[in-house]
């Protein structure tokens, strides 16, 4: 084999390797999702289960502020109460209201966000409109409950927390990935 041929062999191998690594970048996506699922990280859109004997810590109050936003869709979205005071461990229900101000049917998905970040660990949501996509007919109004409790394990220096939801529009072509999430619930 002369040098030119030997060179093309190396070239071919390295090109194949490059293509494989390009694919590997995309393979990281399902891999990442799998890891999050297995380790239970990032399960914002799934219902939590409750340990049976949660104690209610009646000696403590935590103020839960409720926030609502929409991004890029003609909906009006607000909590019916701007904040609630709860005892850690106490099961609480709040209600959000959403109204479709347009004349077309729209699919929306709410994504929660917590402040402080630490709350994510100690907030258990048993029921939430964010667990599935919401389809609103033209001008439809809907009231949606959220059932949650804050674990007594929340550090005692935290007295006020915020639960915030943002509604995003799902184009009809965009629903595929969410249906997968819906299956997992």
């Amino acid at each position: 084999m002369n040098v030119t041929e030997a060179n093309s062999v190396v070239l071919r191998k390295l090109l194949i390797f490059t293509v494989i690594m390009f694919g590997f970048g995309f393979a990281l996506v399902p891999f990442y999702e799998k890891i999050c699922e297995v380790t239970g990280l990032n399960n914002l859109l799934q219902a939590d289960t409750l340990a049976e004997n949660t104690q209610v810590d009646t000696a403590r109050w935590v103020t839960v502020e409720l926030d609502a936003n929409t991004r890029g869709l003609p909906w009006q979205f607000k909590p019916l109460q701007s904040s609630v005071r709860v005892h850690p461990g106490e099961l609480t229900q709040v209600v959000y209201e959403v109204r479709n101000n347009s004349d077309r049917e729209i699919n929306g998905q709410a994504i929660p966000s917590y402040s402080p970040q630490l709350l994510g660990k100690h907030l258990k949501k048993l029921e939430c409109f964010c667990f599935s996509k919401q389809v609103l007919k033209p001008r439809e109004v809907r009231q949606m409950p959220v059932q949650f409790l804050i674990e007594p394990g929340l550090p005692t220096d935290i007295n006020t927390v915020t639960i915030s939801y943002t509604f995003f529009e799902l184009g009809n072509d965009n629903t595929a990935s969410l249906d997968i999430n819906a299956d997992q619930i």
Partner: protein
Amino acid sequence: MAAVHDHDIAHAHDHHPTGLMRWLTSTNHKDIGTMYLWFSFIMFLTGGVMALTIRAELFQPGIQIVNPEFFNQLTTLHGLVMIFGAIMPAFVGFANWQVPMMIGAPDMAFARMNNWSFWLLPPAALLLLGSFFAPGGAPAGGWTIYPPLSVQMGMGMDMTIFAIHIMGASSIMGSINIITTILNMRAPGMTLMKMPLFVWTWLITAYLLVLVMPVLAGAVTMLLTDRNFGTNFFNAAGGGDPVMFQHIFWFFGHPEVYIMILPAFGIVSEIIPTFARKPLFGYSSMVYATASIAILSCIVWAHHMFTAGMPVTGQLFFMYATMLIAVPTGVKVFNWTATMWRGSMTFETPMLFAIGFIFLFTLGGFSGVVCAIVPIDIQVQDTYYVIAHFHYVLVSGALFAIFGGAYYWLPKWTGHMYDETLGKWHFWLSMFFFNLTFFVQHFLGLAGMPRRIPDYALQFADFNMISSIGAFGFGLSQLLFLYVVLKCIRGGAKASAEVWEGGKTLEWTLPSPAPYHSFETPPVIR
């Protein structure tokens, strides 16, 4: 593929075109190396102007010169231009010039492809810089182009994504060329473990490049489809996850920082033995250390994400893995020092830059280890402390090695000695102003000044003013380098073939300037 067979013809014809066509069509490794180096220098000045604008704005608290949006565009483009435009092409330029000469090969393996890898760069640079003029301006979310910002920005972001694609393709082609040249075209008798260290570090760097560049290409492709074609890789609303981008990006990003430093290690490992007039201490441990750094660099990426939300086990793993890198790095620093130990040293400009490199790079390595400690990083992440860290490893690391290498090989390239006095001035001015600029940034960072912010609280004013003065001094000193290089090309004392009395690698057996075609008949290595 035509590229494969072209090199046979490339040195068959001795009449090469002149003028612009010579450069456009050249397949000669020296011509292409020269173009890479000039391209890199132009990008260095371009990125430098952006840096000086940033520092001018930060000279005093308050907003004086640029508006905040433009400021953010400047920091973003400064990073991208310096990394992809200045540092990486400079090292590829060195590889083009030196690798064939140091292994006794006539040229690079794929000469036509070599021409392509260079000529992809100028259009990419134009796209990148052109994004300033796009509606909405250049990307402004930082060189790391994190979503959600990068998904929301104007079309400047799309231009940047294409530029990254093109520059990535260029790097991959360059790397394939370098790997093939090194594997197949060494002179008879030059076994792998007899290769000069510069060649070794580039071989390993090139493998890193083909390993991670395609992953970056994948990441920016996903950004592009998220932006334009309704996919939801990083879009939370559609079930995607912006933090995933950070993982994929840094899977590329951390090896990338070693891509920018391993060839620098190689250059320093050539300079130190020459001017200490002793063989490199611990050659094989140098090779193994380089390889282990490269391997380790692939499993530490999440140290850039300690505050992005990660389980404690993850933080611990990435913390310890990152600290582990300091071990092979320490081996290298030890070996360079041991090479100088009892050597008969002289301190010409290349040696000054190499010693400056060892001091300051090590300092940057130390602040890296500090950043790697999770509880500390949670404090300093996204502050000027990180800025100080990576400028110590990139400017006084990679860039100083590039300057050292340029002075070291300029006589071989041009046939003239450079002006030693001015070279020394360049070194000392750079050394002084570099530290003036960046050392104080450690204090700013520890005191909590965030990065990528055009305005700051009053208590940071003094250090920022010092830093800005240093930056202008540093920037102006680089014009001196330009002058020295031009002067050296135009004329100067005739350089001998050997140039430095301690140089032992093959390029010093060729006349100066190195002939257009070197080693038509391979040298024999004893």
